[in-house]
């Protein structure tokens, strides 16, 4: 099949000017200022999380019994908590847990969900009906309650929290990707691949999966924010990460509320960090959806 078709080659000459990566980023910033703001927030958070070791002024675990409940000052920008631990350092290290749990949980949940959705759509018939019912069952559990139940079984450890958060994401991703895959399946190139003798696996992996990438990425960014929120809520309720791990949700639980009157900064900064992270992901995700969703792009 290595025959050259010179005519076709000339016909494929780029009609649209090829945008470099830099141009694309620049046009995203100009067209979607809110989305770019979100991306900036995320970038800063990732930077802080990666280099927390270097950036944090104190050891987040080290208690300093000489100065508990210190007000925010030049030496402790965000003040100290009831054990004299530096709140700013703990917030910085907290970004690691939040981003790690957020990325891994939404990646695992969305990927498993997307695969199930594609398999469900491509197989059709009984497989589809069965998988759809299973997803219905999982969807019937409220996100937090399902995560709560799973977390209570597995116990408080970061890897279990990831499982507890990713399971409820699976049916949501499966539903969205299945709908997209159903539309892709109707395309002639899928039929052509099938009639050329491509295996089911090949059709799914080579032809359907790449074409449902847009809804998958949209789902992934949308779930990132809510995964961070769920982690915070689980830790707040005492079913997520356990002390002394510097996790934002955990920093708000128990002690923070009881000392809040005396030292409001303990409760203030972790909350700001959670809100900012989720805000960033939501802003970015929203704009990304506008750019990636062809339906919205055409109409705009």
């Amino acid at each position, binding site marked *: 099949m290595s025959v050259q078709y010179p005519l076709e080659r000339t016909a494929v000459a780029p009609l649209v000017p090829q945008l470099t990566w830099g141009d694309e980023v620049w046009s995203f910033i100009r067209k979607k200022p809110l989305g770019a703001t979100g991306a900036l927030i995320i970038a800063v958070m990732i930077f802080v999380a990666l280099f927390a070791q270097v950036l944090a002024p104190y050891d987040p675990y080290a208690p300093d019994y000489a100065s508990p409940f210190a007000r925010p000052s030049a030496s402790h920008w965000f003040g100290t908590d009831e054990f004299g631990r530096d709140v700013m350092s703990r917030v910085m290290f907290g970004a690691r847990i939040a981003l790690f749990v957020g990325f891994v949980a939404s990646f695992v949940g969305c990927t498993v969900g997307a695969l199930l959705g594609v398999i469900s759509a491509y197989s059709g018939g009984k497989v589809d009906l069965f998988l759809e019912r299973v997803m219905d069952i999982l969807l*019937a*559990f*409220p996100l*937090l309650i399902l995560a709560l139940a799973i977390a209570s079984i597995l116990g408080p450890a970061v890897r279990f929290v990831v499982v507890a958060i990713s399971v409820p994401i699976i049916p949501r991703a499966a539903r969205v990707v299945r709908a997209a895959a159903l539309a892709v399946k109707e395309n002639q190139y899928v039929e052509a691949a099938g009639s050329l003798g491509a295996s089911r696996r090949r059709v799914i992996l080579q032809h359907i999966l790449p074409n449902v990438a847009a809804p998958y990425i949209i789902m992934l960014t949308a779930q990132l924010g809510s995964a961070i929120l769920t982690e915070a*809520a689980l830790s707040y309720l005492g079913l997520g990460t356990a002390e002394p791990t510097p996790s934002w949700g955990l920093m*708000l639980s128990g002690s923070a509320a009881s000392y809040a009157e005396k030292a*409001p900064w303990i409760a203030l900064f972790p909350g700001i960090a959670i809100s900012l992270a*989720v*805000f960033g992901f939501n802003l970015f995700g929203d704009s990304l959806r506008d750019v990636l969703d062809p339906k919205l792009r055409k109409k705009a």
Partner: protein
Amino acid sequence: MRTYILKRLFLIVPTLLGVAAVVFVIMRVIPGDVALLILGGDQAGHIDKAQLAAMHKQLGLDQPLINQFGAWLWGVARFDFGTSLWTGRPVIEELLGRLPLSLELAILATIVSVVLAIPMGMLAAARQDTWIDYVIRVVSIGGLAIPSFWVGILIILLLVIYFGWGPPLEFTSPFSNPWANFQQMVWPVVTVGYRYAAVTTRMTRSTVLEVMRDDYIRTAWAKGLRERTVLIRHALKNAMLPVITLVGTEFAFLIGGLVVTETVFTLNGVGRFVVDAVAHRDYPVVQALVFLIALGFVVVNLLIDLTYAWLDPRIRYR
């Protein structure tokens, strides 16, 4: 329409059976023996073997799993969810005592959100890409981003510092003392309502935007109708379906969302009950609550779909 309703009702059965099975299995894989917990302590060595066997028999744990599942389902069918291991009272009794508070909170939050969200969403859509739109979008994305328990903590903090107010311990029914009830519920409602309104505002904005591009809207403009008439009479009516669905689904999910809010405000509702039951490893209660919340969700979803089919005849023929 009747065939559609029957078909939907029939489809509920396997979903509910599946939900029951999942709940049952989850509760069985939890490490730890319920009988041991009741007899006190996790250390198996200290407990008499015969006593343990008797407790197993009493709880029906010596039966094969499938029989246990059958027995539990039979109980569920008769609204008998067993007794709480923690308080020793029937689960259903404990639940009914807490339900009014959660229901009131959920209903009030829904009202607040709908009243705020629909005008805001329409305004943002009508003034797309102006500063009004940006402000509404940022405020509503904020509502999704700010954790409700943190809003709760901040509200309590401000009230305590400036008014010396603390959350009351006992729930006052709106029927016995409306004012006391209002004072108690207003902040939790604000906390829950903000997030709820944010979700609804975003949905209203995007569906109105979509509808505004339709041909009949151009016709309405061409007829020279005022903006208000075009927006309310023509756009809103057709944009409402997805919004109604969202409000319904969110309402069904609200019980789950109340878990944190009720914990922050120390309200003794259903959400708090779930957290306490999980913490106390009160299996019959967790099992019953998770099942009932899922059941509520399935039923609300069915009602939404039926409303949809009733409002939009095209759906019935799919």
